[in-house]
């Protein structure tokens, strides 16, 4: 009953005209950047973070969240029509979605992707509503040792699930941890790694770092390879899937929703991984696995549902524990902090209108996306026809404006360019930026909790092992990080990385 009353409170916030407007702007921009290859939700959210400084925290978070789940919808359009994933979570949609388009079934492919996303997004919100209060009550009992160990576990899972070399991912996490420490030490006010620069006293900005490593680096990599875009010139026909399509898609959507939601909660899981695993599951349970890769509608419905459910599930650790499970949520954490809010177990009791307003807005946003996507697919196709040579200078321009306007500092623009070059070299050397960024965000929290735990225990390291939750987190983290030494676990990780 409590949940119902809270949800009504949430809708009263989300349905305020100004919040509806920002929700619409969020999902619209999200769909647009999902459609456009070369700029993902992370870069777009960083770009718009400064724009939110002048609006209420509710409207800001509602808009930024809308960009995230909106991009999940938009990414499928590019994957199906152009065979280029608009963002990473849509990579598997290319396999069967584009084949369906080639067989003249682009309409049902886009349709089932939109409906599947809507159903999964809605189910994820229901899950969030049911799980978040319980988890928040439990999390109130967490002390510094538990927080420290949970963050170590989060980073370990992200590193374990990253593509390719485990050593490289670990090294990136280590670098990110130290980058996060730059600036004034919050415990004894000592400046660290500031090199006498006033601009660094507040630490490195999250926006220049993320825009450089994700936005600028992506553009630089795209510039050195010619992207062949073949937009499939066909009549879309009816976007409504047939009865037969629904029959084939219902179970994959249900499985994808559950899988995506659970993987979304896990630190490091997220939308990309869940879409790949959903595809693998659907192929395995299918009576006709030979049709996968040749236009099987289940190969579109399952992964699209999974990536949207994961987008919803990712809000749980952020909202209840204050720990972002992935880079997108790390950016949202940044947005909360900018607005003077600390997500965590107390958010629900101290700011129920904000928490439930965001939850309700996600439901409204999902309805908007369904209404927005089906009629506007023709417009998104036209957007795709803009040549990259015209598009990339404009993306660079928006990156510069976005970074500059955070603190009106040209220094941040130089930082972004510098991180862009670093990100470009990292991509070429197969180093992933995600562990670095998550560690950068978690670094100060991790250090703070480590130092507090040691002060409280008077320097007794066994505090991390004598507290059950902390001990379990550290044991799982150790198991994951030592997995390369265990042949069976190594094989599992290699399969996951290969499927990605």
């Amino acid at each position, binding site marked *: 009953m409590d949940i119902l009353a809270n949800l009504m409170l949430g809708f009263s916030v989300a349905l305020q005209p100004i919040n509806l407007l920002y929700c619409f702007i969020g999902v619209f921009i999200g769909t647009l950047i999902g459609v456009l290859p070369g700029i993902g939700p992370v870069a777009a959210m960083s770009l718009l973070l400064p724009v939110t400084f002048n609006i209420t925290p509710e409207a800001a978070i509602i808009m930024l969240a809308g960009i995230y789940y909106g991009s999940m919808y938009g990414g499928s359009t590019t994957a199906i029509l152009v065979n280029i994933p608009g963002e990473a979570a849509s990579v598997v949609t290319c396999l069967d979605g584009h084949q369906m388009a080639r067989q003249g079934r682009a309409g049902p492919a886009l349709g089932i992707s939109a409906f599947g996303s809507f159903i999964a997004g809605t189910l994820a919100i229901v899950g969030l509503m049911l799980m978040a209060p319980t988890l928040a009550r439990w999390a109130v009992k967490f002390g510094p040792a538990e927080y420290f160990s949970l963050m170590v576990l989060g980073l370990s899972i992200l590193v374990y699930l990253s593509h390719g070399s485990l050593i490289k991912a670990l090294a990136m996490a280590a670098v990110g941890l130290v980058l996060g420490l730059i600036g004034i030490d919050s415990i004894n006010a*000592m400046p660290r790694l500031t090199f006498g620069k006033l601009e660094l006293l507040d630490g490195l900005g999250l926006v220049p770092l993320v825009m450089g490593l994700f936005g600028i680096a992506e553009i630089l990599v795209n510039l050195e390879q010619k992207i062949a875009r073949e937009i499939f010139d066909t009549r879309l026909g009816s976007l409504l899937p047939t009865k037969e399509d629904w029959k084939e898609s219902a179970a994959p959507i249900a499985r994808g929703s559950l899988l995506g939601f659970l993987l979304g909660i896990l630190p490091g899981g997220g939308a990309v991984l869940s879409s790949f695993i959903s595809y693998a599951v659907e192929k395995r349970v299918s009576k006709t696995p030979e049709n996968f890769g040749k236009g099987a509608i289940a190969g579109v419905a399952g992964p699209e549902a999974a990536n949207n459910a994961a987008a919803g599930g990712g809000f749980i650790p952020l909202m209840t524990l204050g720990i972002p499970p992935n880079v997108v949520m790390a950016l949202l954490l940044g947005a909360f902090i900018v607005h003077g809010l600390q997500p965590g177990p107390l958010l629900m009791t101290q700011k129920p209108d904000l928490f439930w307003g965001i939850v309700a807005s996600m439901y409204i946003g999902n309805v908007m996306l369904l209404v927005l996507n089906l009629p506007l697919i023709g417009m998104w196709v036209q957007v795709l026809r803009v040549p990259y040579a015209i598009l990339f*200078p404009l993306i660079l321009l928006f990156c510069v404006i976005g970074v500059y306007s955070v603190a009106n500092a*040209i220094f941040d623009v130089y930082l972004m*360019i510098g991180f862009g070059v670093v990100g470009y070299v990292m991509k070429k050397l*197969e180093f992933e930026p995600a562990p670095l960024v998550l560690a950068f965000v978690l670094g100060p929290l991790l*250090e703070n909790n480590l*130092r507090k735990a*040691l002060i409280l225990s008077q320097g007794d390291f066994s505090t991390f092992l004598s507290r059950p939750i902390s001990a379990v987190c550290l044991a799982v983290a150790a198991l994951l990080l030592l997995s390369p030494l265990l042949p069976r676990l190594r094989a599992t990780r290699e399969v996951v990385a290969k499927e990605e």
Partner: protein
Amino acid sequence: MRNGNIASGLALAALGVFFIVEGQDLGLGRISDPGSGFMMFWVGWILMAFSVALIVTAWRDETRANDRSIWAGRRWHKAAYVVAVMALYAWAMPTIGFVAATILFLLVLFKTVEPQSWPVALIGSAGSTAVAWLLFVKALGTQLPAGVLGIG
């Protein structure tokens, strides 16, 4: 990639040493009251360990000894050129202002990276600057450098 991995391993090792030295300078404190440099110092050692592992793994990977360079066959000079143009743009913006610097920045990129016709480049750069200015400065109240032209 083998050489790339060895080079990146060496760079990370150097970074690790830097963190260790900086951490020590900042002060390690006591275990019961860790200092400002405590975490940086230990993360530096951990990074050193990873970089050594990376170098050793790459060194022993004979199969990739003859891999092509990561720069071979790529148009990396385009990326380098765009970085240089962006740096110039950032340098010029506070002096000549957002509007003038942006028109020039876009014009140069439109005309030189994948050359567009003059009408497309001119209309594209002036039009996009105008839209960005109206959207960010006028509608959203963002402060951008006015420069000598006084528009910002």
